[in-house]
């Protein structure tokens, strides 16, 4: 079976990468192939990396409040590259009230602080496996 390839990324200027790194390690321990971009990624850079690395999943970590700006821009960059079917998930400090609109635009799930990594791994395995 093909291993699931996941791109874990920190868009925008936010430097809080503890959660992104912990989730990336959990993906790796679950047997996924993980590409971690590090900080300060623009939507263009993320979409381009997703294309080059041929990933199945993109996970965005956002704690800066820029989610309502960054997700739509990333989705349009993905569409421009024919990648709109990739599984797109997000995590971080994202208010409950913002989640329905993010899902409506194509984000599969948002995981807020306190979510067990096992739950995220199971979600990705079920949807991208």
């Amino acid at each position, binding site marked *: 079976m093909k291993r699931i390839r996941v791109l874990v990324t920190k868009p925008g200027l936010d430097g809080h990468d503890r959660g992104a790194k912990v989730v990336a390690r959990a993906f790796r321990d679950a047997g996924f192939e993980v590409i971690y971009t590090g900080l300060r990624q623009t939507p263009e850079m993320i979409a381009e990396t997703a294309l080059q690395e041929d990933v199945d999943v993109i996970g965005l970590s956002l704690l800066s409040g820029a989610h309502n700006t960054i997700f739509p821009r990333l989705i349009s960059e993905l569409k421009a590259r024919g990648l709109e079917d990739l599984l797109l998930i997000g995590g971080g400090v994202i208010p409950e009230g913002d989640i329905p609109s993010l899902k409506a635009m194509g984000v599969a799930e948002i995981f807020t602080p306190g979510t*067990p990594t096992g739950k995220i791994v199971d979600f990705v395995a079920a949807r991208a496996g």
Partner: protein
Amino acid sequence: MDDSKITPTLAQAQAAWRERTEKGLARFPERKNLALDRLYTPLDTAQVDVLSDIGFPGEYPFTRGVQPTMYRARHWTMRQYSGFATAEESNARYKYLLGQGQTGLSVAFDLPTQIGYDSDHELALGEVGKVGVAIDTLADMEALLDGIPLDKVSTSMTINAPAAVLLAMYIAVAEKQGVAPAALTGTIQNDILKEYIARGTYIFPPAPSMRLITDTFAYCSRNIPKWNPISVGAYHIREAGADAVQEVAFAFANAIAYIEAAIAAGLKVDDFAPGISWIFTADLNFLEEIAKFRAARRLWARIMKERFGAHDKKSQMLRFHVHTAGSVLTSQQPDNNVVRIAWQALSAVLGGTQSLATCAKDEAIALPTEDSARLALRTQQLIAYESGVADTVDPLAGSWCIEALTDRIEAEARAYIARIDALGGAAAAIEKGYMQGEMANSAYAFQKSIETGERVKVGVNTFTQEETHSGEYLTVDPTVGERQVARLNALRAKRDAAKVSAALAEVRAVARSGENLMPTLISAAKTYAGLGEICGVLREEFGEYSAHADI
């Protein structure tokens, strides 16, 4: 601790008690993996000398506190971290908090400001005014501090890579208010090494960053002596995954690097070390945190005296601010956070902090509302005025458990610092990815301990409930970015462009010459040159840092 009472009888009695206890353990097994011993007795503190290791408050090695009277004379400064949207909106929140009895300001800047971009930069899109206030030019700083008397209120600014520029703007505003630099009190964070390993708002590579820090040390010691030119961040290292010992050790290793750089630049340790301040976290392990603060004070005093030969008491004192840990707050059952924050704050007070910021209960979800921000401040006031713990100095001293823990944390932190020294110091250790790796390991181990149930997290892996998120959360006006860019454009049209260009050329010249940058940054701020314009020149001269992306 008091050798006269430690007789062979105590050791024998304790051994006999252990033996009797072992029999019951089969029926009542102890919880596994606890960091503390079952019981502490005078045998655990036999190596601690009351006079030289614990001593008296206000005296070397300051284990019991940096002031002789501590909170009996004056409570800690209640300094809530705050800032969002535009300068006017943040100014209104500051005035509200000061009106509610807050005693100092703590300015949160948005990410474009922290990374030296003006609000109209491509990378600023969606970030303007979100995690703090947007400051592009001196005009924003004037609006931010409007009506706040800078000779009376002390201001702490969480700003690192472009700290020198924000300090220059602050000095320029004070001048316009008629306040002399010598009267200013406050702090810039200005701690770049922890940005590379923990917080991420770096701009320049290490060498020019260290030069900017040394420039602010030199400028402040000569011109604004009451200003703290650095607040070394232990907090961010812990929040990024470190444990309590690593928090102390890595922050100390970074501070040692700044001191060595300043000495190498020709400064005398007692001229600038009194201006070194600190920010620590207050995490959840109540006893360990109290011991951590005491151990840190003692270890720092010893490092300053033994390693750097500092004679001035103020150079030896570890004066610190505490911000309660945000990463341990949960989005599940957010009211539980009120209780967590209360005992975190209590540990900081029992640990002898100089100032304190308490998180608001909704910070795992969004920025605090006015109501939750007020409750966070009230938490401090309740501890100060109703709990009684502030009525005597260092009340837990002499507890066998606390003293043994204090001793252990000091020894373990010392051992970590020796390992970092062996790697060539903090900058080399960061370059090798050493601290980042240690922190990532600790963070992952912590998360796994929650998921295996080894560590109980109330409301997360145990005592969970179905939840509906009906609370009210603060949302930043989505038009703040456009409004800020419009302000910036209006200001650019109005200012004297020739003066701005000349000032930026001067910044470039001084960046090259190696002279102290502070005076020219102050002149540039007064022309209303943008933070992004000034940092843009410095980016061209200094280059930009690119970080490791290891997990």
